C-alpha cells in the first residue's frame, strides 16, 4: 500500500499541531552531526577497498580539437594502469534533474578545463604525476568567451510584456534606470566532488558526492551505457553541494568507466582546481532594471532584463527575473532574458538560482527609488505589496512579507536610522544601515519514502540526500511525531538508490517534498494501527511507544510483537501550482562600517526575518538562514570567479583566490521566523527555507554601504576599489 498525495488542494487541517510526541517544530540535534564532527561519517573519497585504483582527471589547456601525443609514454609510467580517453566521459556536470547524460566527448574541448582524459594508477600520487606529464595538444578554435561580444539568444517564452513600460517611465514622478552586474560565482562546497566506482561485471555501484540520486543514477547509466537497473548510487553523507552536485559529475562517469575497464574499484577525486571549472558555476549577470513610481512611491512600471551566459548545448539559463514576476505590483511590466553562448565553463544552478542575484540587484534598485521618492525603504516595500500575483492574477497561497518587514524592522531597530547618507561616523569609519526584501519561489518535487515499524522502533528509508542541511534530523522528527516514538528509536537511512526515490536536495524543496513523503508513510502506519485498534486514525494518540484510544492504552510491543508494519508515502506536485502563486518571503537588515580611507567594508550585524511556512526544526532552519546570509555577504563584498578575457578560463580557481567570506567577515547573524502555516504547501504546511536567506541579503549590505558613505555600488562584489571609486570625495 502507498499513501499517495497530489497537492491539488489546501490542507487546512493542521494535524502536526495536534500530535502528542512533541518533537516536530522543536530544536533537535542532527543525528549525523556528531558523526561528522568525529570523522565517523565517511565521504565518497574515504571509501576503502584493498585493490582500489586512483584516477586523476586531465584538463584541456585551450579550447579546440584535442590530441594527446605522448599517451603511450604516460601509459608506461610508474604505477599507471590506464589512460582513458573515452568518448563517454562528460564535458561538464549534468544540469539538475537532467535525468540523462550531459554533453559527452574528449576530442574537442568546449572550454578551458574540460576533462579530456583520466589517468588511473596504483596510487593517487602516481596518477596525479602522470596526469601532469600527459601532453594535451589543442588545435585552437576561435570562439567567443566574453558575454557582450556575441548576439545573445532571446528565448521568447522568457519574455513578459504587460502594458507600456516606456510610457510609465516617461510619466513617472520618480524613477530608476540603471545597470547592475554580478560576476561568475561558484558553490565552493567544502567537500570536493569525488566518486568511488565498483563493477562486478553486471552491476555498477558508485559512491558519489551528489544531491539528487534518482536522477544521478539515470544520468550515470545513460553516460556509460548501462540499464539503470544495473546501477546503484550511494551518497549517505555529502559535504555541501549548493547546486554543484545536482547532476552527475565528471569524476563519477570517469570513475565508472575506469572501473568497468579495469575490473577494479576506482576512486576519482576532483582536485580543488577542477572543482572550480568542471562543475557548474553561477553565470555572471548584467541586469537592466527600470522602476517607475507615482508621487507616493507606488510602482507604475517595472522592468528587469538580464543577460546571462552558458556553453552551447546547455539548456540552463540563470533565471534572474524569476522573483520579479511576483515581488511587486506594477501595471506596466517588461521582463526578459538573454543568453550569450560563450565558452566559459558551464553555468548551472547555484544556491537559489535566479533570486539570489536577481532579487539582490532589484532590491538595490528599490533602495535607489526609496531615496529619490523620499520614502522609507521599508515603507516603500509595504506600499508595493501586490494583492494577487501581479501577472497572472492568481491569489497567493500565503503572503507574509508585511509581517516579515515589520517584525524584522522592529527587532533590528530600524526606526533609529538616519535616512540620509553620511550621517554617522566613528573615526575614519562611516556607519550605516540598509535593508532589502527577500523573495523565493517555492517548489515541491515528486518524492517517496518508506517507514518500517517494529516494536523496537522505526526505520525511514529514502534515496534522499542530506547535504549538510538537516534531512536526517527532520525526517526523524516527522516520523517520531506521527508514530509517537522518542527520537532515539528512529533510524533514518538516506542516500542509496535501493531505497524509494526521494526528491533529492535542491531548490529548497527537500524538507517539504521528501518530508511530506515521510509524513504520508507515517500516516499510513497510523492508519494501520488504528485499524488494528478498531478506531479512526484521528482518535489515536501515539506517544512514547504507547497507543491510546479513549482510555485504552496499548504498547507498541503488545500491538506488534514480532510483526513489522510498513508505510509508503508518495507525494507529487499537483494543481496547487495552477491555482495559487506560492513563494517564501523575508526581509534583511544590515549595519555596516565603511572606511573613508580605503573603502573597506565591515558588516557589523545582520538580521533576517523569514516566512517559510511551518518551521520543522528551528535549529536546522536557522542554520540554513545563517548560511544564506553569509552567502549574501560573499555576493555583496567578496566573491568573484574571474575569467581570463582571452580564453575564458577560471583564473582564481582555489579557495585562496576565490574569496568566500571568512569568520572575520561574518558578524553575529540574527534570524527571526515569522509565524506562518501555508495550507497549500501540503499536510505539514511547510515550505522551503534553504535558499531564502541568500535572496536579497547582499542588497541589504550594498544599501547599507550607501547609507553609510554615499557610495552606490552597482557592480558586485563591492571590493574596496569599487567602493572608493563610488564614494563622494
Amino acid at each position, binding site marked *: 500500500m502507498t499513501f499517495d498525495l497530489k497537492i491539488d488542494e489546501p490542507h487546512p487541517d493542521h494535524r502536526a499541531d495536534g500530535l502528542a510526541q512533541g518533537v516536530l517544530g522543536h530544536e533537535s540535534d542532527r543525528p549525523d552531526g556528531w558523526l561528522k564532527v568525529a570523522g565517523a561519517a565517511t565521504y565518497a573519497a574515504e571509501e576503502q577497498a584493498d585493490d582500489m585504483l586512483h584516477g586523476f582527471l586531465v584538463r584541456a589547456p585551450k579550447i579546440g580539437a584535442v590530441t594527446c601525443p605522448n599517451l603511450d609514454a604516460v601509459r608506461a609510467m610508474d604505477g599507471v594502469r590506464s589512460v582513458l580517453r573515452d568518448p563517454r566521459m562528460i564535458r561538464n556536470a549534468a544540469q539538475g534533474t537532467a535525468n540523462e547524460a550531459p554533453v559527452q566527448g574528449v576530442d574537442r574541448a568546449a572550454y578551458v578545463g574540460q576533462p579530456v582524459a583520466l589517468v588511473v594508477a596504483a596510487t593517487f600520487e602516481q596518477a596525479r604525476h602522470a596526469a601532469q606529464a600527459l601532453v594535451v595538444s589543442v588545435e585552437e578554435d576561435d570562439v567567443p568567451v566574453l558575454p557582450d561580444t556575441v548576439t545573445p539568444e532571446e528565448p521568447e517564452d522568457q519574455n513578459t510584456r504587460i502594458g507600456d513600460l516606456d510610457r510609465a517611465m516617461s510619466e513617472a514622478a520618480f524613477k530608476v534606470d540603471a545597470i547592475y552586474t554580478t560576476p561568475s560565482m561558484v558553490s565552493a562546497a567544502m567537500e570536493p566532488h569525488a566518486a568511488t566506482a565498483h563493477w562486478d561485471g553486471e552491476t555498477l555501484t558508485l559512491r558519489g558526492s551528489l544531491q539528487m540520486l534518482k536522477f544521478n543514477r539515470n544520468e550515470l547509466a545513460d553516460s556509460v551505457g548501462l540499464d539503470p537497473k544495473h546501477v546503484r548510487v550511494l551518497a549517505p553523507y555529502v559535504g555541501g553541494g549548493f547546486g554543484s552536485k545536482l547532476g552527475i559529475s565528471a569524476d563519477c562517469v570517469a570513475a565508472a568507466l575506469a572501473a568497468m575497464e579495469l575490473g577494479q574499484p576506482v576512486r576519482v577525486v576532483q582536485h580543488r582546481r577542477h572543482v572550480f571549472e568542471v562543475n557548474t558555476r553561477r553565470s555572471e549577470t548584467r541586469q537592466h532594471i527600470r522602476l517607475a513610481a507615482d508621487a507616493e512611491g507606488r510602482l507604475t512600471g517595472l522592468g528587469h532584463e538580464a543577460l546571462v551566459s552558458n556553453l552551447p548545448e546547455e539548456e540552463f539559463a540563470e533565471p534572474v527575473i524569476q522573483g520579479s514576476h511576483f515581488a511587486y505590483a506594477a501595471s506596466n511590466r517588461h521582463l526578459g532574458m538573454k543568453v550569450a553562448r560563450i565558452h566559459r565553463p558551464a553555468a548551472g544552478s547555484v544556491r537559489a538560482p535566479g533570486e539570489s542575484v536577481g532579487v539582490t540587484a532589484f532590491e538595490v534598485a528599490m533602495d535607489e527609488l526609496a531615496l529619490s521618492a523620499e520614502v522609507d525603504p521599508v515603507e516603500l516595500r509595504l506600499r508595493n505589496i501586490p494583492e494577487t500575483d501581479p501577472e497572472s492574477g492568481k491569489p497567493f497561497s500565503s503572503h507574509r512579507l508585511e509581517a516579515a518587514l515589520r517584525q524584522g524592522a522592529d527587532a533590528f531597530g530600524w526606526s533609529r536610522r538616519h535616512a540620509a547618507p553620511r550621517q554617522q561616523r566613528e573615526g575614519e569609519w562611516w556607519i550605516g544601515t540598509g535593508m532589502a526584501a527577500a523573495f523565493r519561489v517555492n517548489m515541491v518535487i515528486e518524492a517517496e519514502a518508506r517507514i518500517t515499524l517494529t516494536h523496537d522502533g522505526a526505520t525511514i528509508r529514502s534515496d534522499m540526500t542530506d547535504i549538510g542541511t538537516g534531512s536526517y534530523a527532520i525526517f526523524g522528527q516527522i516520523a517520531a511525531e506521527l508514530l509517537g516514538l522518542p527520537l532515539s528509536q528512529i533510524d533514518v537511512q538516506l542516500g542509496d538508490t535501493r531505497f524509494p526515490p526521494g526528491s533529492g536536495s535542491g531548490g529548497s524543496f527537500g524538507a517539504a517534498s521528501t518530508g511530506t513523503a515521510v509524513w504520508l508513510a507515517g500516516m499510513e502506519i497510523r492508519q494501520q494501527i488504528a485499524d488494528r485498534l478498531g478506531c479512526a486514525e484521528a482518535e489515536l494518540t501515539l506517544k512514547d511507544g504507547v497507543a491510546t484510544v479513549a482510555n485504552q492504552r496499548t504498547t507498541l510491543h503488545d500491538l506488534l510483537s514480532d510483526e513489522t508494519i510498513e508505510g509508503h508515502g508518495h507525494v507529487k506536485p499537483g494543481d496547487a501550482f495552477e491555482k495559487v502563486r506560492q513563494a517564501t518571503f523575508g526581509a534583511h537588515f544590515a549595519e555596516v562600517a565603511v572606511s573613508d580611507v580605503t573603502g573597506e567594508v565591515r558588516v557589523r550585524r545582520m538580521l533576517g526575518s523569514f516566512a517559510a511556512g511551518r518551521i520543522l526544526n528551528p535549529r536546522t532552519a536557522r542554520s540554513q538562514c545563517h548560511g544564506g546570509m553569509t552567502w549574501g555577504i560573499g555576493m555583496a563584498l567578496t566573491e568573484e570567479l574571474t*575569467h581570463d578575457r582571452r580564453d575564458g578560463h577560471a583564473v582564481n580557481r582555489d579557495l585562496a583566490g576565490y574569496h568566500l567570506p571568512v569568520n572575520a567577515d561574518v558578524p553575529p547573524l540574527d534570524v527571526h521566523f515569522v509565524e506562518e502555516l501555508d495550507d497549500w504547501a501540503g499536510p505539514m504546511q511547510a515550505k522551503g527555507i534553504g535558499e531564502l536567506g541568500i535572496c536579497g541579503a547582499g542588497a541589504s549590505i550594498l544599501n547599507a554601504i550607501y547609507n553609510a558613505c554615499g557610495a552606490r555600488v552597482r557592480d558586485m562584489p563591492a571590493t574596496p576599489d569599487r567602493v572608493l571609486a563610488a564614494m563622494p570625495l
Partner: protein
Amino acid sequence: MRPFDYQRPETLSGAHVAARDGATFIAGGTNLIDLMKLEVMAPDTLVDISRLGLDQINTHEEGLHVGATVTNSDLAADMRVRQAYPVLARALLAGASGQLRNKATTGGNLLQRTRCPYFYDTDTPCNKRSPGSGCAALGGEMRNHAVLGTSDHCVALHPSDMAVALRALDAKVEVEDSDGTRRAIALDEFYRLPGDRPDQETTLNAGDLITGAILPAPFGGRQTYRKVRDRASYAFALVSVAAMVRMDNGRISNVALAFGGVGTRPWRDRDVENLLIGEAPSQKLFDTAGDILMKDAVLYDGLEFKDTLVRRLLTATLTELTQ
C-alpha cells in the same frame, strides 16, 4: 607532484652537504608543497631544516636575531617583538591564517613565491616559472599584480607582509653558503627586480641557507602596519604599508616606509623618506610623498585603483603617526 627524496639532517653541516648536491630546503612547506603538487617546483631532494636549532629568538648586538625556522606565530607573539617592533608583529598577524602562521617560518616567508595565478597554472606561459616562455598575466587578469618595479617580462607582486615590515626595519638576512660561510645581506639588497630574469628573485646563490634575520634596534617613535585586502582576513594585500615615524618639535625627524601590494619586491623608496624628514606634517606634504612614490608606476588595465589606494593609505598612516 614528482617523486622526491627527503632528508632531515640534525646539523647545519648536514644541511650544507645536501645543499651542495642541489637539494631544496623545506621549512614550513606552506608554499613549497603547494607548488610541488602543481609541479611548478619539482625538486629531486628535499632537506627539512626544522631540526637545525634555528628556531630561537635571541638578543643580538644590533637588536634581535630571529632564527630562520621561528614560526610566524611565535615571532608575532614574542614580547620583545611586540614591544620594540610592533610593525613586525602586526604585519605577521595580518598575513595568511592562524593555521598557516603556525607552520610558516621566517626564512620561508622571505622566500615565498608570488601569488600571480598564472605562475601557478602550468598550462600558461610564465617567465618566472619557465624562463623565456612569456608572461600570461600581461593582457590577462591583473588585479593582484605590481605597479612598481615591473618589467615587460614580469609584473608579479612579492606577496609577503612580513618582508614589508622587515624592509622598513632595515633588517638583514643572515645566510650560510654551502661551505658554511656566514654573511648578512641587507634587505635592500636581498630582492632583485624582475628585469629580464624574473625567475631570479633574490641575490642568494644556489645552496645558500637562510639561518636568520637580524632586526636592528628601531629608531623610536611610532610604528604601524596597515593592510587593505578584499576580505577581513586570509587574503593577500591589495596595498599595505609598514610605517615608522619619529616626531621632534612638530617635525618628522625620522621615517621609514615600506609598501606591500604594489611592488615586484617589498617596496621602499628613500626619496619619499628624504622628502618627509625635517618637515612638518601637512596634506600637501603627504600628497607630494605620494607623487614621488608613484612617479614610475606602470598602471596596467585593472590596476589603476592601486594608485589611489596607496596614496590614501600613505596619507592616513602618516596623519595617524604624526598626530
